[in-house]
């Protein structure tokens, strides 16, 4: 075989279906809420969804289990939205690990991400060793983050992905990834309910093969938005009417904007409340307003219509507070302050002051992470521990009114029923809630065609997709559609996960590749008579055609239709040929021959019998080499009857006929392998036929 495909070097050929195996491993958010990070790998492509921290912990403990994976192998990292539990370990991952892939998020997410993390670094009061990253890392990470617009399709190394509106917060996205035709939807946090400023999560156009879905709300059902809003405003109204103070601990971004829109509108409709101040204690949120004002296109039509007249994010009844020092606690008021979990900071300071007065109220508007004070006071304990370590009675009213923009059970089950994904993987939910959700979903999809999984952190879900590889034969090669049994030979070009077969001449037409011919011309000093060369070549090569060069009139020879030997001058001859392995070899031997003549060493012609003998020797040698190579490939190779070789692998036996190359045996796979291996060995050790084409 002339082609170098005869090379013995071959890829590890997996007998398993490794190539079709799809692995999903939560590195965080598996049976827990916080530090979302899901690893996925299929067909050698690797994707990481989200890169969060667990806000309840600090330092390394807050990170997802990055040590489970090799960050350098990840092709693409997709961030769904800016919340800390989805994006906050990104600077660490980008700057402190070997990750070298590409990162994508939406425009709004990127703009807020920077503000939010810078604030996070400033606020979190941890020791220097515990600092995962600093402001410098955040700024550096900004250069590496690429932006993607909703619905925009991006392709990286054959991985196609695009995103849909997720509803949850401004810029939140659900990512759909397409690898070799297998589609995976990662919802991140999503909400199917339109609120005051955000659109509801879209229903993807295509049904995914796998849906990795959040399960924060478990089997809970949300009250309708109007009831929630009414409860919220009623509690506030009655509290301030009685002279109490209302504390709303909320995360600075996301729900806070929604609540402010509600309050501003309520105040506008109730003039009697105009003397009661509403404060918004977050410089961060103030900074982010510019982002909210700009990415109007990511919001719903209501806001976009309002925007045409005036900016809905310029509040008329709400003022901003920069710090607790600016706050004069003189009478009833409404204060929204971060953090939402009451761990520390402004909201905690106010809580400590206000918690023992029963006129006051605290409204917890969203999801509370396990282990935070907000989660504790929901159960209305008699006493709480203040920041200074003392305990105080908890007299203030605590209301939990969920405005969390996470899909509830009704939304989740309708969403899944619309999509009908054959595989559902639950993440981002507290273990018990998740279990209940799983049970309930089983009852919704009773036909058994749907697999529902809830892996723990670092626990891999393995799925198999035996997708057929399709190729398109195009160009000259496709002029005639072949029938069964016809052969098709050509160049197979693989780009991403698409295959094309074409004739070599068409390569430049249908791909960016091109073929080349390399013409070689070499001059050799030779001062003898040209006739000598003609004579010697004639003895060695089967076909030597003499001719005369048209231009110079000097004699020329064509050896095997490949190499032209020409007399250039008295002292030089030249060889010209078009590169390919055989021609190169022929030309080498001509060169050797010419040099030998030049050396004028009298040569004795080797006798015939030696040649015969060596042929026999060669034959034996070939046998030996074939045997040795087979042994090195298959291990157990024995000489059987009729000169057949018996090859045993894992109890499967194949009989190989060395003469014909025929293989007999039970196991198809083994048979095929032996046949191919033998074929290749033969083409490597047997003489090369000169008559290629």
């Amino acid at each position, binding site marked *: 075989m002339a082609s170098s495909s005869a090379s013995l070097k071959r890829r590890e*050929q997996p007998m398993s279906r490794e190539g079709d195996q799809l692995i999903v491993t939560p590195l965080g958010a598996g049976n827990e809420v916080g530090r979302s990070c899901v690893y996925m790998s299929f067909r050698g492509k690797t994707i990481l969804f989200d890169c969060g921290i667990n806000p309840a912990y600090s330092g390394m403990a807050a990170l997802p289990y990055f040590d489970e994976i090799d960050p350098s192998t990840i092709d693409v990292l997709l961030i769904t939205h800016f919340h800390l539990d989805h994006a906050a370990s990104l600077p660490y991952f980008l700057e402190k690990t070997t990750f070298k892939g590409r990162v994508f998020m939406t425009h709004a997410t990127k703009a807020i991400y920077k503000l939010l993390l810078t604030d996070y670094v400033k606020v979190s009061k941890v020791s220097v060793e515990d600092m995962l990253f600093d402001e410098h890392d955040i700024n550096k990470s900004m250069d590496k983050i690429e932006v993607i617009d909703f619905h925009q399709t991006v392709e990286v190394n054959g991985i196609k992905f695009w995103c849909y509106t997720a509803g949850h917060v401004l810029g939140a996205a659900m990512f759909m990834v397409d690898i070799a035709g297998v589609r995976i939807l990662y919802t991140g946090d999503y909400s199917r309910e339109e609120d005051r400023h955000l659109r509801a999560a879209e229903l993807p156009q295509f049904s995914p093969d796998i849906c990795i879905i959040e399960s924060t709300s478990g089997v809970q059902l949300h009250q309708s938005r109007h009831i929630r809003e009414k409860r919220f405003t009623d509690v506030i109204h009655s509290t301030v009417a009685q002279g109490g103070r209302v504390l709303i601990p909320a995360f600075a971004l996301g729900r806070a904007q929604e609540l402010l829109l509600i309050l501003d509108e309520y105040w506008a409709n109730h003039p009697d409340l105009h003397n009661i101040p509403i404060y918004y204690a977050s410089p961060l949120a103030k900074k982010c307003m510019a982002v909210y004002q700009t990415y109007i296109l990511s919001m719903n039509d209501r806001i976009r219509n309002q925007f045409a007249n005036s900016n809905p994010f310029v509040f008329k009844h709400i003022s901003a507070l920069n710090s607790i020092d600016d706050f004069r606690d003189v009478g009833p008021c409404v204060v929204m302050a971060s953090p939402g979990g009451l761990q520390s900071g402004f909201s905690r300071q106010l809580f400590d002051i206000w918690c023992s007065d029963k006129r006051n109220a605290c409204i917890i508007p969203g999801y509370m992470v396990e282990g935070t004070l907000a989660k504790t006071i929901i159960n209305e304990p008699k006493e709480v521990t203040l920041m200074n370590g003392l305990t105080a009675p908890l007299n203030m009213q605590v209301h939990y009114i969920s405005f969390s923009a996470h899909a509830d059970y009704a939304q989740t089950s309708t969403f899944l029923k619309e999509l009908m994904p054959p595989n559902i993987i639950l993440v981002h939910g507290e273990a018990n809630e998740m279990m209940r959700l799983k049970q309930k979903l089983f009852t919704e999809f009773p036909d058994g065609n749907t697999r529902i999984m809830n892996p723990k952190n670092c626990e891999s879900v393995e799925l198999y997709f035996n997708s057929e*590889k399709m190729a398109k034969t195009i160009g000259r090669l496709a002029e005639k559609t072949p029938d069964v049994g016809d052969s098709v030979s050509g160049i197979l070009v693989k*780009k991403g996960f698409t295959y094309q077969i074409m004739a070599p001449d068409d390569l*430049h037409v249908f791909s960016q590749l091109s073929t080349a011919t*390399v013409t070689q*011309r*070499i001059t050799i*000093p030779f001062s003898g008579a040209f006739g000598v060369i003609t004579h010697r070549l004639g003895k060695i090569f089967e076909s030597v055609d003499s001719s005369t060069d048209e231009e110079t009139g000097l004699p020329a020879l064509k050896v095997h239709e490949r190499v032209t030997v020409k007399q250039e001058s008295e002292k030089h001859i030249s060889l010209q040929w078009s590169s390919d392995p055989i021609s190169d070899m022929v030309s080498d031997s001509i060169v050797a021959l010419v040099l030998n003549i030049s050396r004028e060493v009298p040569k004795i012609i080797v006798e015939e019998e030696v040649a015969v003998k060596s042929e026999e020797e060669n034959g034996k040698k070939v046998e030996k080499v074939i045997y040795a190579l087979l042994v090195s490939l298959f291990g157990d190779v024995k000489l059987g009857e009729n000169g057949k070789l018996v090859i045993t692998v894992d109890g499967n036996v194949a009989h190989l006929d060395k003469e014909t190359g025929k293989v007999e045996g039970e196991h198809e796979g083994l048979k095929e392998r032996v046949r191919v291996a033998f074929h290749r060995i033969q083409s490597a050790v047997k003489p090369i036929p000169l008559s290629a084409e």
Partner: protein
Amino acid sequence: MGTSVQVSPLCGVYNENPLSYLVSIDGFNFLLDCGWNDLFDPSLLEPLSRVASTVDAVLLSHPDTLHLGALPYAMKQLGLSAPVYATEPVHRLGLLTMYDQYLSRKQVSDFDLFTLDDIDSAFQNVIRLTFSQNYHLSGKGEGIVIAPHVAGHMLGGSIWKITKDGEEVVYAVDYNHRKERHLNGTVLQSFVRPAVLITDAYNALYTNQTQSHHRDTEFLDTISKHLEVGGNVLLPVDTAGRVLELLLILEQHWSQRAFSFPIYFLTYVSSSTIDYVKSFLEWMSDSISKSFETSRDNAFLLRHVTLLINKTDLDNAPPGPKVVLASMASLEAGFARDIFVEWANDPRNLVLFTETGQFGTLARMLQSAPPPKFVKVTMSKRVPLAGEELIAYEEEQNRLKREEALRASLVKEEETKASHGPDENSSEPMVVDTKTTHDVVGSHGPAYKDILIDGFVPPSSSAAPMFPFYDNTADWDEYGEVINPDDYVIKDEDMDRGAMHAGGDVDGRLDEATASLMLDTRPSKVISNELIVTVSCSLVKMDYEGRSDGRSIKSTIAHVSPLKLVLVHATAEATEHLKQHSLNSICPHVYAPKIEETVDVTSDLCAYKVQLSEKLMSNVIFKKLGDSEVAWVDSEVGKTGSEMRCLQPMGSAAAPHKPVLVGDLKMQDFKQFLSSKGVQVEFAGGGALRCGEYVTLRKVGPTGQKGGASGPQQILIEGPLCEDYYKIRDYLYSQFYLL
């Protein structure tokens, strides 16, 4: 066989007329752009009117009149009802452009081709896509995927990729490969070997693009030179397209130099335009979105530019040198025309054109070399009716109402007289036409009324049912004269300023709801004056059109190297030039169809699909080459359960094939590679690469072509027998894959 593709231009081939092309893909008709020009000549749309009802989808590429101007008219009058696809900025800025066009027209004529409502309803159902969004059509277009990609010419400007069964049709007009302040360059180069490329040859002969920073310096110097001697600078601009780039240049320069000269941006929709543009950051250049992400600086928070939406504000502005950007760029209507007339006779002033005016417009005339010394201009003003006229109008309105009521009962009678009536109708207005508009209203109004009440239809009164049309006809005639540049008629100018703008003033305050501006129903009329304007101000033209120039067009097309190329939108000369160029060096199938000439660009590509069996694939060893991997396969067709052909390994040893070297050798890269290996290497004459002392390497065969269209590469290596020779040959081989 491939997907059937036919292209037939409806407007805008072999000239600079607006763009509008019909592309039919397997029977699904796409209307690519739906443009009109500033003259609003309905005759341009005749070809469109013949096919409008068969259109299945409209794709818009840029938010200016030339690309979408005819949309409201076509939707209203020509029966176009297909869904429209555009990017969000094209939709929004296109809408504003049309508002501006309408309001500018309405101010100076009884413009009746379309109304604000028509514009609204035309744009209401635009389906908005983002860049690189693959939108799958459904229904009749099942299997077709459309996607807009960055074109670079205007904000949101798109080149469209239409894909069916893996065959790509790319429509790319007015693209710009250069990155600008507010826009990224086009991504057209990233499309390789589409089946069909439909592109314009507009700039094919224009190759004199100066470097952008030189151009900017010159631009700003010219402006400041005139400002410093106390002159005013007028930049006639489009409503919401290229003007954005100019605003950024001026804004940036003004902040650097701390200039105190005011800049005004004056269109009917300027404040809405900038408000929307501020929220389109994700469509702009990387640097703009980056600066917002890191420092929340919105580039379109203009600190030095004052946005104006009526001319009174400009007139009230403190006197002194100023820069005014006003629409329309063609000077055919809009504020720019008024300002031009006012400023033209002062030699200190400057009118700076940033784009070539549309053919046959005042702007184009002024751009000719040498510029004309005098131009005849018809200035028209809308003035509210007063006194007698108003009374007459009101009577007229009452009469019309009564007429409406009467009409129902008169239908039958009219029908019987129909054969006689129309003749009278058509002749009568022509007679009255010689008089001025208000005369007509004043004297004839009562007469019509009486007669109609009586129910008689005598010759003079038979025009009455046609009254509204008659009024328009008269004005249309006048308007027609206005827009024909060869036909300027002379009158004098005085009734201007305060009175006429009183209306505009009040409405202008409504700002955001500019749309409602002209819903004002106060009776008014249009008065035209013709005057000769002495052009003593400086006229300068600079290229801020934001299109790739001729050389870049050629290299871009060569890079894309489509299998078939269709050329549109350019002068006959430019079209022919690019056609010849492409035929010679890009692809053998170049078409430049005439209007309503259908060319079939169905690809003659043969293709069939096969399944690659697991057995075959397990024995294929891919070699990585750039983005793709290649391998040689020998296989035979086997059977599968389904209809599909399946490729399986050969049963017997495959016949050996001719070895193929795959790879693309760039001499420059190879030189680097060799020197990194310690070989002395340098370029000798004639593109030959001299390696070491004796060995030379050169590319032979057709040279000077980019892209892979030229066929296989031919490389010649020669030298004497020496070690170097074999070493270099090995290096050379290492650049290729042998299959």
